[in-house]
């Protein structure tokens, strides 16, 4: 298709405008974290670092950060194991119900978070609670792991599809045992995809709030829950802005790393 220079130019302008639109609110947040005014008056009234200092002393925010890290690590660990197993099963074997398996893996992310939240909440209330497992970090991790599996699964599956199975066959033809083949051939092939999937899964868990709301207890507050609880408190709002600014800047790291480590960036899988 030969596009006229005018059309190319229009498309370029639209694309850059959309990127600008994506980043404008983020820039506003970062700007506000330096804004002297407590009420986000626009244009800003002056530049200050006092909110940054206050945020670094905020025990609520730091506790919540720690809770989020624990929940993210737990959920990622489960998702890495289960997602990798499912990806190997679907990519390396043919079996009846294969499509159902991949549909099941996608389901927790395709259904609205509130449904996953209400469903898990109902189960934790009626099944887990009588067993002595109350709401808390464990239930949050179970909830997060459920929708993180698909992220690892997608990354590993794409890698397995790209690398094929000829190296594995060659390895076992040369006399390697199953364990040796895994240790020296399969694992090095999927290692970077594993890291990319784990990073994205951690990021997803770190930012999740809906399922967390329904699976957490009042004393277990993840960072998003802390932000939500403090968003409308005039005293805390500037500190929330600082935390938000930090999160925005940090978000670049997993995305950039996963793009470098993962498969070709055009796979476009979420």
């Amino acid at each position, binding site marked *: 298709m030969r596009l006229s220079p005018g059309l190319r130019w229009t498309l370029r302008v639209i*694309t850059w405008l959309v990127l600008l639109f994506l980043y404008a609110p983020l820039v506003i947040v970062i700007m506000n974290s330096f804004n002297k005014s407590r009420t986000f008056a626009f244009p800003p009234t002056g530049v200050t670092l006092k909110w940054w200092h206050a945020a670094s002393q905020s025990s609520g925010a730091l506790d919540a950060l720690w809770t989020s890290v624990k929940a993210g690590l737990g959920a990622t660990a489960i998702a890495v194991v289960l997602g990798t197993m499912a990806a190997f099963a679907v990519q390396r074997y043919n079996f009846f119900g294969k499509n159902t398996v991949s549909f099941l893996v996608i389901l927790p992310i395709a259904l*609205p978070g509130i*449904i996953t939240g209400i*469903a898990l909440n109902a189960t934790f209330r009626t099944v887990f609670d009588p067993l002595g497992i109350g709401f808390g970090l464990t239930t949050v991790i179970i909830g997060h792991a459920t929708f993180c599996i698909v992220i690892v699964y997608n990354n590993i599956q794409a890698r397995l599809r790209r690398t094929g199975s000829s190296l594995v066959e060659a390895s076992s033809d040369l006399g390697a045992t199953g364990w040796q083949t895994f240790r020296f051939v399969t694992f090095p092939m999927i290692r970077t995809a594993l890291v990319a999937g784990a990073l994205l899964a951690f990021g997803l868990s770190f930012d999740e709030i809906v399922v967390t709301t329904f699976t957490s207890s009042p004393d277990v507050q993840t960072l998003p829950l802390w932000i939500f609880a403090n968003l409308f408190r005039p005293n805390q709002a500037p500190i929330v802005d600082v935390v938000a600014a930090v999160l925005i800047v940090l978000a670049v790291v997993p995305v950039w790393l996963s793009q470098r480590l993962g498969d070709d960036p055009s796979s476009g899988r979420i």
Partner: protein
Amino acid sequence: MAGAQELTAAAPRNRGSLSAFFATKRRTRLAILLSAPMLWLVVAYLGSLGVMFVSALWTTDSFTGNVVKTVSGDNLHAVYTSPVYWRVAWRTVEAAIAVTVIDAIIALPVAFYMSKIASRRTRLFMVVAVLTPLWASYLVKAYAWRTLLAPDGPVSWAFAGHTPGYGFTATVITLAYLWLPFMVLPVFAGFERLPNGLLEASSDLGAKPARTIRSVVLPMVFPAVAAGSIFTFSLTLGDYIAVGIVGGKTQFLANVIYGQLITANNQPLAAALATMPLIAIVLYLLAMRRTGALENV
């Protein structure tokens, strides 16, 4: 050489062990690989959805507020015959459709530019640029829109006092903003799979760009748009937080569900209400499955 000898010497000994057992039992290996993920997804996830359905049939004691575990259709009856809930459901579906359409209209030219016009380096930069906001805090972005649309905020400042204010429109704008990357990425991947040769063939056969877009590009990327729409549709159906932040008094289905569970502490009614978005998204998934969208998610 010693190492190689060791390896060959060690190999036969290992052959008798666990490795050899699994090497011959392909079905066993598959069963083991599938067992844990399926146990989790079927028992923990589908099981939970089952518990949710069952709990929708329970009631609460009007005096103590405790859940009474006797089967009754009262909650479901109340939900599906109430004009109030239907009105909220329609408002939510309207917003989901509006958000999906807005995102598709924005994503198509952007993804086309990224995939077919931009240079390799620009493309990589743009993919990262679209992905990054996805991992920046969702709450913060919703809150940024609250700041943007505030009576004395930047939008009002830039448009001389004209802002949509907090309400339905503000919610649709904010949600369209929040879910845009979920639409751009699958559509971009769809364009990447569309061979350039097809576009050239169409143009060699005399088609103008408009005709090529209508007859070649759109039919080929439709499954990708459908895949993106699953996210935009489902995420909108389940959102109550952005609605709460920029929606003013506007209520979506998820707000009502949240209110029943957390504020009114009526878990059975919340579960009954949750069947509404569940049915909507299942119908949507079934409709989209025929387009091949699920392979693009």
